């Protein structure tokens, strides 16, 4: 298998799906002539033309709504938000229109649309540009939320998302775009289904659950823990809705311990949802309270030392796992 970057994997997914289905188009700020704010759409304008790669003014609510209206009437838009921070000015479109059209019409309307952008903190871009939005969108019935952490998952899940008949919130990572990894050849046409977590590392002592950038921290922390004699099983959820709690429950029944790691805030987040499901479905298997290592409950500060403290670190993960193992 060849190695490509996460950004290239996304680019291939969009290009392949545009090639396969003429109804698929890409719309957003700087996606065309500029080649994408993060170069995910590099070369697509030249390849597909300005009918299908559409630059927009800075009007997220406007072009998100245009995408939803186009999806309702038969197209399959891929809407790029530059970053998920800017989706907040299109929140009404996503929550009130994309997520509600189907139910409100008694099932007559579907909204096959993908909203995609990098999610979470980058480096020192401060409070308004560091949102990890998964809790906001995973809360909403009518939306699916996907957060791939590897190039292979990015490609396979984006292809699935574009073929999905439901609205998909697709969370990428600015700090993941350069990540290299193995991805099947283009003609493999690999589709990774929504709602299937992936066990990235097997271990018998504690289950670590993460997604997106935090998955990589969970992996590096588990390497350190291994040196201390604690073997973690690391699960990458990949989708937050649908949520593959079965894979998590199965793992917890084996390890009897669980720590959840995520960048976003603790209050009412997907980590809290998982805690509820685990305590319901694996109560008798738990040997310790479920731990959470999350972004701190503050708007993101600018100063690099503080930003590093706010995001989950290997040290915090190690500590939480050791606490769950009663070694702390």
């Amino acid at each position: 298998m060849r190695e490509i970057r996460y950004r290239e994997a996304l680019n291939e997914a969009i290009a392949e799906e545009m090639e396969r289905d003429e109804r698929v188009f890409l719309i957003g700020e700087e996606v065309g002539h500029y080649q994408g704010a993060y170069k995910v759409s590099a070369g697509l304008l030249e390849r597909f033309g300005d009918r299908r790669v559409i630059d927009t003014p800075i009007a997220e609510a406007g072009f998100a709504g245009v995408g939803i209206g186009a999806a309702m009437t038969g197209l399959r838009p891929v809407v790029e938000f530059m970053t998920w921070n800017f989706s907040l000015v299109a929140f009404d479109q996503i929550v009130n229109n994309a997520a509600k059209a189907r139910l409100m019409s008694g099932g007559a309307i579907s909204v096959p649309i993908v909203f995609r952008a990098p999610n979470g903190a980058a480096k020192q871009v401060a409070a308004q540009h560091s949102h990890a939005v998964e809790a906001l969108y995973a809360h909403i019935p009518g939306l699916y939320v996907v957060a791939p952490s590897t190039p292979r998952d990015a490609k396979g899940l984006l292809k699935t998302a574009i073929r999905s008949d439901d609205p998909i919130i697709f969370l990428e990572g600015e700090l993941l775009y350069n990540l290299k990894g193995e991805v099947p050849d283009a003609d493999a046409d690999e589709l990774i289904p929504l709602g299937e977590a992936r066990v990235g590392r097997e271990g018998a002592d504690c289950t670590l659950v993460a997604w997106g950038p935090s998955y990589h921290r969970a992996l590096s922390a588990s390497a350190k823990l291994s040196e201390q004699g604690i073997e973690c099983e690391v699960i990458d959820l990949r989708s937050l809705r649908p949520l593959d709690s079965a894979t998590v429950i199965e793992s917890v029944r084996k390890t009897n311990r669980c720590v959840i790691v995520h960048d976003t805030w603790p209050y009412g987040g997907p980590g809290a949802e998982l805690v509820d499901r685990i305590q319901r479905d694996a109560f008798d298997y738990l040997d310790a309270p479920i731990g959470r290592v999350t972004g701190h409950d503050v708007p993101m500060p600018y100063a690099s030392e503080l930003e590093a403290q706010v995001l989950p670190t290997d040290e915090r993960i190690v500590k939480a796992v050791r606490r769950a193992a009663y070694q702390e």
Partner: protein
Amino acid sequence: MANGGDVAVSTEALQAHYRMMQTIRRFEEEAARAYAQGKIGGFLHLYIGQEAIAVGAAAALRPDDYVFQTYRDHGTALALGMPADAAMAELFGKDTGCSRGMGGSMHLFDVERNFYGGWGIVGGHVALAAGAAFKARYQREDRVTVCFFGEGATNIGGFHEAMSLAGLWKLPIVFVCENNQYAMGTPMERTTAIRDLTLKAQGYGMQGDRFEGSDVTRVYEHLCAAVDRARGGEGPTFIEIETYRFRGHSMSDPAKYRSQEEVDEHKKRDPVAITRAQLIDAGVSEDALDDVDAEVDELIDAAIAHADEAPPAKQQVMLDSVYVTTYPEAG
């Protein structure tokens, strides 16, 4: 129904308009009664006084043109051909409703007739309509989109962004502002710095058109011109139609912010009465029109009876209408 260019309105067409306007009027009156009886819940926004707009606009469209409306949507749905039974059953929250009882009064949908709702957030649907127009152009289809909204929507961001994009891309769409003078209870002079809303059209690079909307033929003629422009690739038109709702904003609004004199003055331009007078002038007999009224009464009585007797909304339809594809763990 389609026309597109030939705007001469025959007496026969005007009779059809009268029948539809009377249908909307009687539908709304009986809906209000059913609401008072507790058969309809939630919000109920009546279209009484604005009937000429929905009917005149619908007559200017082809069956495959797209239409988007706000929550004051009964009149538009009926004018586009939604059966009164399906509309009333929706208000009653029944399974035979046009949205299977999932939407209610504010969310009527009839995709078969290209009526795409029925939207409850002011200004939120304007970009959706632009999206339908975008789709028609993307697929090189000869279809126009009409988007209705109230004057209250012209102050919110969603409206502005959608208008900006539609103007920029010269989409095949007609924006129809039904200016009924009050954004809920607040008169326009307290919400908007200009009186002529079509002044905004220039800023979006589109044509503006403004007129009084109690005459269904006038509405039809102006809409035909705008629809033709859109179909001909000349881009969007922003139409402001002056109108007046005879009832409050919704059933819970006694409309104390306006005087009875003001309401009475506007009722002199009752669009249903105007059309009736025009037909009498054209030689149609009172008896013939009374017959139409009687037939409409029967239709609406039947719609109420249907809605009363229809089975309740189904839990399974609700569960099946959240997603197209469901997963075992999705919720």
